[in-house]
Structure formats: C-alpha cells, structure tokens
C-alpha cells in the first residue's frame, strides 16, 4: 500500500518541512512500503499542488481545494485525512505545529497510537524517536495496521524540490464542520531566513537583558545571513516573539552553525539545538553548561563581545 504525506504549504509553495517528510517516506518505500502520495489541502492551492508534483519521488498529488481547508483547522483537516486513510499503510506529517495539531486526531479516529517525531526509520514498523527532551532515544515497534507518524524534520534531508512528475488529482475536500473558526494570524515574519531551515542561527538568552540588546546581534546576523533565535527565558521576558524559541517545547533546529549568546544551556534548550553541526557559545560564566556541548567557547561579556564580533566579521567578509 502507498504512503500518504500531508503537505505543509502556504497555498503557493510547499514548505521545506514537507520535503524532509518526503525523505522519511522514501526511506519507508525502501523498506517495502509503496508509492508516495502527497495531500495538498488548502484554498486556491493549485500552485502549491503543482510544486508538490515536482518533488522528487512523489508519484501522485491529491488536491483538496476548498474554503473549508483554508486555515488547516484540525477538525476539518483530520476528517479529510481519515476519509482517505483506507488506501494507505503509512500516514506522515512534519512534526511542526501544523502536523502536531491535527495528526493525533487522525490517529485517534483510526484507533491508532501515533508515533511522534521520529528521528529514524528502522523498517516499515519500527522507528527511533527522542524522549525526555532528547536525553534518550527509544526504538519502538508499532502493532497498528496503519502507521500514523510525525517526522522530526532536522534528521531527514530535504527531498529535491524538482525532478518529480507526479499526477495531480482533485479530491473532495469535505465539509466545514464549523466547530472552529479562524480569526487572525500575527506573523512576526521579517526578511530573515526561517529558523528551521537557516544555515546559521544566532540565539540570545536571558543574558541579553532586554529586547533592545538583540540589536547587537542583528548586524552580525545580517553579515552571516543568519536566522535569529532565543531561549525560553528570553521569550518569556518579552525580549523577542514566541516563534524564536528553540528547545524541547519550541523549535528543533540543526544548522551548520549555531551561536548561543548569554544562554546557560538548560537541557530543554539543548534539546532543540544539540544536533547543530558547529556550536559556539559566548557566556560570561565559565561554568555554564552550554560549554559542554560547544565546539568553540568564549568566556566574555556579551556586550563587549558582540560589537567585537561584528567588527571582526566586517574585516574578513569585506
């Protein structure tokens, strides 16, 4: 039987998280599961469906184009997916707030125990997933007939966005159950790269002391083309928006370079960034636990170090 991947998209393009999830699906195909089918549920989402059809390895794209699917409301999306589920051995979505919101509903309606946030595929029914904020890795085997899975995007490379030639097929989007209604979205946005896909991330913690001092990070982030992140303490203190939070209960990231400024390195923060390729920590406390995972550590006052770092980068990058 085929594999159904629920695409995360903005009606025009498919999100990178979808490409990582397709790679996890491709690994399942390698273990004997069938073709990969993408579901694009949205409103006026023909462009996203076309983009989905080009993703390498995708055999078919189902498009549910209807106002009822416009805002990925969990009730409507779950009932759509449950209606399609009979044809599939595996149903996958990225472990983003998009996937985490609706997929457990699908699992419950199918009477299946979902496998959350897999970080590796062992075979068609066996998966590795982090538990306890990534301080342990559990290998679990599912006895359910359909496997319902969210995928930790940082541990699967993105599938090539070009090269596929899937057939696009419309499907009935289902009714608007009307139990919940979209009101508004406040995106903190900006023109920086997205945290989850950035090659470089610079994060600030409570040590920054205020929202204004994140201005010291900005020119450095500009020079490195970096996304900006934060610890929970910095978000809770109101220095920066919630979607900057990296960690067990925020975003999980794995960039080439992660720079932690004024962050102590609590396990809940490490859970979100310790798979980064190179980690740099700048902290005035030489005992800070962040230094235990840092490839390069600098004991310094950040208010002095950040302007210096900006100046040094200006030298080598000019």
């Amino acid at each position, binding site marked *: 039987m085929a594999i159904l991947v629920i695409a995360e998209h903005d009606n025009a393009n498919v999100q990178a998280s979808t490409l990582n999830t397709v790679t996890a699906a491709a690994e399942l195909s390698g273990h004997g599961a069938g073709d990969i089918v993408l579901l694009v549920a949205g409103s006026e989402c023909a462009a996203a469906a076309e983009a989905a059809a080009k993703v390498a390895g995708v055999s078919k794209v189902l498009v549910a184009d209807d106002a009822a699917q416009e805002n990925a409301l969990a009730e409507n999306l779950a009932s759509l997916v449950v209606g399609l589920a009979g044809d599939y051995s595996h149903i996958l979505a990225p472990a983003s707030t998009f996937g985490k919101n609706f997929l457990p509903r699908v699992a419950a309606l199918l009477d299946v125990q979902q496998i959350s946030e897999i970080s590796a595929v062992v075979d068609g029914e066996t998966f590795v997933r982090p538990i306890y904020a990534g301080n342990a890795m559990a290998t679990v085997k599912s006895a359910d007939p359909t496997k319902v899975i969210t995928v930790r995007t940082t541990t699967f490379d993105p599938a090539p966005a070009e090269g596929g030639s899937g057939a696009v097929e419309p499907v009935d989007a289902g009714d608007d159950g009307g139990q919940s209604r979209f009101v508004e979205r406040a995106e903190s946005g900006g023109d920086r790269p997205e945290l989850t896909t950035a090659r470089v991330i610079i994060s600030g913690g409570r040590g920054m002391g205020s929202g204004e001092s994140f201005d010291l990070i900005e020119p450095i982030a500009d020079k490195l083309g970096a996304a900006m992140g934060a610890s929970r303490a910095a978000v809770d203190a109101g220095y920066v928006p919630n979607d900057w939070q990296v960690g*067990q209960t925020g975003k999980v990231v794995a960039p080439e370079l992660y720079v932690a400024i004024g962050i102590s390195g609590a396990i809940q923060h490490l859970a979100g960034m310790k798979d980064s390729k190179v980690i740099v920590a700048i902290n005035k406390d030489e005992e800070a636990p962040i230094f235990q995972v840092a490839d390069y*550590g600098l004991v310094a006052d950040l208010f002095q170090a950040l302007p210096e770092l900006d100046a*040094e980068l200006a030298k080598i990058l000019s």
Partner: protein
Amino acid sequence: MKVLVPVKRVIDYNVKIRVKADNTGVETANVKMSMNPFDEISVEEAIRMKEAGTVEEIIVVSMGVQQCQETIRTALAMGADRGIHVKSDEDLEPLAVAKLLKAIVDKESPELVILGKQAIDDDSNQTGQMLAALLGWSQGTFVSKIELGDGSAKVTREVDSGLETIEVDLPTIVTVDLRLNEPRYASLPNIMKAKKKPIDEVAPADLGIDTAPRLQTLKVEEPPVRQAGVMVDSVAALVDKLKNEARVI
C-alpha cells in the same frame, strides 16, 4: 461550568535522566517526580477561571501508579476541588489515556478540558488532540491565551510562524503552552485543606477501556554525545577558528 484537568506525574524537569544499563528504559527508582510542568499551567488557568466566577468546579484526573495521588494532591492544594485517580501499573500510551479521559468526560460532562500540550517524559504531544477527536469536540492547541465567551471561546495559539487566534465552540479541548500563565505555589493552609478533598479511585476496567499498548519499546539508548570542544580566548581567535578550522563562515 465544570472543568476537567488531567495531570501527569513525570520525572521532575530538573533531573538529569539516566538510561538503564539494560536499555529497557529510563531509571525511575529514587528519582524526584513532579507534576508535568504544562499541567501546572492548566491547573492554574482553571483556578483563575474559578476565581473569575466562570467556573464552578475543577476536577483533576491523573492516571498511573498509586503515587499519582500525590500529584492530584498538589493540584488540590493549588485550588482544584476534587480528584479522580485511574490506577494502573502499566504504562499508558496517549491513545489509552485519551480513551480513559473520554469515559470520564462522558460521566462528568465538563464543558472544558484543559491539558498540557505535551508530557515532558514521552514528549508525545497527542493526548488532548486525541481526546477532542474521540469526543467529536473542537480543539485549541498550544494556547497562550483563553477568552471564554458564551457558547464559544477565543484562543491564541503559539504556532511556528507566530501567533494564531481561532474561535472554538464549547464544549472544547484546550492544550496549554508555557506562556499562558505562571502557576502559583500552594500555601501551607491550602496544603492542609487539600488533605480533606476527595479523590475517587477507579481502574481502567471499571471504565470499560482496553489499555493494551500498541507500541512495543525495543530499546532505549543514550543519544550520541558531542565531543568536547575548545575554549578560545578572544573574539578574533573565535572568528579565525570558524573561518579556517570549522569553515562555516
């Protein structure tokens, strides 16, 4: 209205967990246990609703071993009214917990169930959504603000791109994120008072629910450890390392 708040007993978030030598799980003997931090936030929110006069009764439920009653007592000391302990010595998966909660909802008819967005032991992030599906109710997940209205509620959700506000019909399921509120500590008099509040004990079988696990844990291992790095003594040295050794800038 009546509110139901499920609270899970987990290893305290400050404990550095250890994987058992035989790779069957995580060491729990002689380890400090606490209420799942998200569930403290749920309890706090329910109490604030009661203080505001919109909620009459707060029922807390915990499922698992005998000591879950301590977790229930903590919630009662914070200000919840009564407890239900679903006693089981087996590990209960989110689907089983959701089914047991549905059976309790069918009996108690709350108009609102507030859960944590995730338990910090299994990191599943499933139970609330599953319960909503089994009941056929609306849901608001990862919530940092709740405004109860007449027949509906407006909730603000923390999503990857920022904040999203939706309106959900009552009865509903809410799962809470960290920034909803700051939970209170129980005062000594309230801890004493909580000792007299009732806790009902039931077994999964009494509720007619099969809790047999669907996932078999084959092994639990330590994650790969990072090699210790080096300390540099200046910003210039750091930049040099990043450029010429790590080659990431």
